[in-house]
C-alpha cells in the first residue's frame, strides 16, 4: 500500500504539467460542443424525432467532454506498457519487489487525482447555467468518473500487455479508440440507439462516459455495474500480466 501511495504522490508532483494539459484540453471542449450544437439543431429543425432535445443533448455532451478531458491520461497506458516491454525498461520494474500493474495504475491515478475533481467542479459551475446540480449526484459523479477511469485504464493496460505476443499494439489502440467512441457514448448518446441496440448501454465501455453521465442524472444503479467491470477487467489484467511475463524477451543491451 505504501508504494501505491508513493506512486500517487510522485505523479502529483508533476501536477503542474498535468493541470496545464488538462486546461488545454478543456479549451477544445467548446469546439466539439459547437459541432454537436449545430448538428443536432439542424437535425431537429428538419423535423427528425430523437429521444432527447437540443438542451438535453448539449448537457449530455458537456458532461462527456469534461470527463474525457479529465481522464484522458488513461489512454497513455497502452503506450507506456508497449515501450516498457519493447525497450526493455520492464527489466527495471520486475527486479523490484513491487507489482508492476499496481504501480502503473496508481501512477496513472496520481495523474488524474487532481484533474478529475477539478473537471467535475468546473462542470458543476458550467451546469449552473442551465440546471441546479444535485450535490449527491455530483459526489456520485466523482465516484463514477474514477470507476470509469479505472475501467478504461484496465482495458488500455490489457491492450498494452498484448505487446508480449504481437510486438506492436499501437494500431490496435487506434482501433480501440474508434470502438470506444461508439460504445462509450462519446460519439452518440447510447439512449439514441434503436430499441434493439439499447442493451449496449450496459457494455463495459459505457462505464467510461455514458454511465457517469447517467449517474449524474440520478441513475445510481450504474455504479454497481461499473464496480463489477472494475473487478472483472482488473482481474483479467493481472492474469494476462502473469501469463505474458513468461514471454518477456527483454530487448536492448
Amino acid at each position, binding site marked *: 500500500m505504501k508504494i501505491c501511495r508513493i506512486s500517487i504522490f510522485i505523479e502529483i508532483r508533476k501536477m503542474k504539467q498535468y493541470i496545464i494539459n488538462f486546461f488545454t484540453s478543456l479549451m*477544445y471542449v467548446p469546439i466539439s460542443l*459547437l459541432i454537436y450544437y*449545430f448538428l443536432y439543431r*439542424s437535425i431537429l429543425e428538419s423535423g427528425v424525432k430523437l429521444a432527447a432535445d437540443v438542451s438535453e443533448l448539449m448537457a449530455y455532451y458537456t458532461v462527456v467532454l469534461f470527463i474525457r478531458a479529465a481522464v484522458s491520461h488513461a489512454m497513455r497506458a497502452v503506450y507506456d506498457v508497449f515501450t516498457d516491454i519493447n525497450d526493455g525498461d520492464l527489466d527495471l520494474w520486475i527486479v523490484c519487489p513491487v507489482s508492476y500493474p499496481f504501480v502503473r495504475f496508481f501512477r496513472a491515478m496520481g495523474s488524474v487525482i487532481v484533474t478529475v475533481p477539478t473537471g467535475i467542479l468546473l462542470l458543476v459551475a458550467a451546469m449552473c447555467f442551465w440546471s441546479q446540480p444535485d450535490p449527491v449526484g455530483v459526489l456520485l459523479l466523482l465516484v463514477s468518473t474514477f470507476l470509469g477511469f479505472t475501467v478504461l485504464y484496465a482495458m488500455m493496460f490489457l491492450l498494452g500487455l498484448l505487446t508480449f505476443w504481437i510486438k506492436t499494439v499501437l494500431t490496435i489502440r487506434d482501433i480501440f479508440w474508434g470502438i470506444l467512441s461508439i460504445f462509450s457514448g462519446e460519439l452518440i448518446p447510447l439512449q439514441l440507439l434503436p430499441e434493439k441496440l439499447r442493451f449496449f448501454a450496459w457494455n463495459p465501455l459505457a462505464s467510461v462516459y455514458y454511465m457517469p453521465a447517467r449517474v449524474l442524472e440520478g441513475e445510481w444503479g450504474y455504479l454497481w455495474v461499473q464496480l463489477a467491470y472494475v473487478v472483472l477487467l482488473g482481474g483479467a489484467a493481472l492474469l494476462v500480466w502473469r501469463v505474458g511475463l513468461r514471454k518477456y524477451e527483454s530487448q536492448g543491451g
Partner: protein
Amino acid sequence: MKILMQFIRISVKRILAYPNEIYMVFLQAFVSVVSTALFWAVLFSGEEAYGHSQEFVYILAMIALLSNGVQELFFGLRDLEYLVQAGEFDRYLYLPRSPLLLRLGETLPVVPMCQQILIALAGIALVTVRFGIMLTPGRFLKCVGFLLLGTVYYQMIYGAVTFLCLRTENISSLRDLIFQFGDYKQYPLGIFPIVIRFFLTYIIPMGLVAYYPTVLLLGLDEPLPQLYLAMPLAAAACWWSYRTSIKKYASNGG
C-alpha cells in the same frame, strides 16, 4: 526517383516486419467507416433528409476517409515536435537532401495510406450503387483534384504552425487545437453559420478536404471557395516559418 523508391521500400519492409499490422490498419480504417456510418444511421433513423440527403453524408464520410489517406503523405510532420525535443532532428540537417523530404519520406506509411484510399473508394462505389448515383469521370477527377489542392493548402497551414517547434520546441497545444478541428470534416458545412464556414474553408480548411470535394463529386450546384489569394499566402507563411525557425534551431542533447 531512386530515393523515392527507397522510401516506399522501407515503408513496405517496416510493415512486413509486423505482418499483423497490415490487418490491423485495414481494420482501423474499417472501424472508422463503420462508426461514421452508424452515427449517421442512428441520426437518420429512417428519415430521408434534414437539409442534406443520406447519400451526401455517406459520400462525405468516404471522402473524409479518402482525405485521411492522402494526408498520410505528410505523416512525418505530426511528431516533428517530439523529434526536436529528443534531439533526433539533427541528423536530417547533415544529410545532403532536404530535411523535410527525408522526414516525410522516412515516415511515409505507404500500406496504411493505400488501404485507407482503397476502403474510401470502395465505400464511394458502394454508396453510389446503393443510392443509384451517376458518377462521371470528370466529376471524379475534379473531386480528387480539389481534394489534393485542399490537402496541400491545409498542410501548408499546419506546417507553418508545426515548424515553430524548431525554435520553441513546445507547440503541442496549438497543434492539437488544429487537430481538434479535424472533427469538423465529417459534418456538412451547411449546418454551421457563415462565420464558422469561412473559418473552416480558409483558416483551418477542413471544408476543402471533405465537403467541397463531395460537392464536386455529386455535381451539386454550390459556389466553390476561391483560393487564388489564400494558397500563395499559406505557402509564404509556411516557407517563412520554416526558414526563420531553422535558423533559430538550437538542437537538444549532447
